[in-house]
């Protein structure tokens, strides 16, 4: 079989039979109905919608942490001056004992 000739014949067949350009009845009405449900996309509107959606989970997480911090037992935490504890924590690395210098 001559493959090049077959290729030529089949391409000619495709050219000789162009696809129909028939449009289904009331197609444009259907598209317009679809478009009526969606407005032109606006970047600010998209941002606003995304932020509004994110607001509810953020509030919920904030409430959970508030309740947790209010109800959490604080038995292990030594009572004392908060500023002093903060300073101790901050300078913990500096306060650690320096290794002994080697004898000369």
């Amino acid at each position, binding site marked *: *079989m*001559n*493959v*090049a*000739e*077959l*290729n030529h*014949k*089949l*391409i*000619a*067949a*495709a*050219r*000789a*039979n*162009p*696809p*129909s*350009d*028939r*449009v*289904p009845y009331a*197609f*444009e009405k*259907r*598209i*317009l109905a*679809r*478009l*009526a449900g969606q*407005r*032109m*996309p606006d970047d600010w509107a998209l941002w606003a919608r995304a932020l509004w959606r994110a607001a509810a989970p953020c509030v919920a997480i904030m409430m959970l942490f508030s309740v947790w911090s209010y109800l959490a037992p604080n038995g292990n935490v030594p009572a004392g001056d908060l500023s002093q504890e903060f300073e101790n924590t901050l300078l913990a690395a500096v306060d650690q004992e320096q290794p002994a210098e080697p004898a000369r």
Partner: protein
Amino acid sequence: MERTEAELIAAVLRGDAASFEPLIQKYSPRVFATARRYARRESEVEDIAQEVWLKAFQKLKSFRGEAPFEHWLMRLAVRTCYDFLRGHQRNRETTFSELTDTEGDWLERFVKQPDSVSEHADAARQLIERVLAQLSPPARLVITLLEIEDRSVKEIAKLTGWSVPLVKVRAFRARAEMRKLLTKIAKEKYL
């Protein structure tokens, strides 16, 4: 008085979606004809056409009016068809032993007397559809645009968004892929 395309587009951009209707009516036949090149089932064709128009509406802001609206729309249509082909890649490892009787007869006559068979025959049309369906998405797109629609490499580059060298490379590979498929038909049928 009939409004021009530019006026219709400006009205749509101002929020008057109804002004989009005359554009849909005018260009839908071309969109459907393009979609029918790549999709076989009518439901798929309608899905593609619908997607083209929804995308056109959403991206209308990007139409700068430097080229005709039709060219811009056809670029969108071709790219949507290509996305459809990539998204619906079927298993292309099927055999050609399932050719219908009319396709088989057409091939038999072609083998005996290549000049006697008509390319206008339904069997030839069915056979080329079958072969195109087996091609990879880029090969099918390139063969359709270059060989069947007789477009230039430059035109294809504009339509697809590919560079000219890429179109040439893909055209070379597509022709090789097509030859390989036709050789496979010949082997399965006559060996």
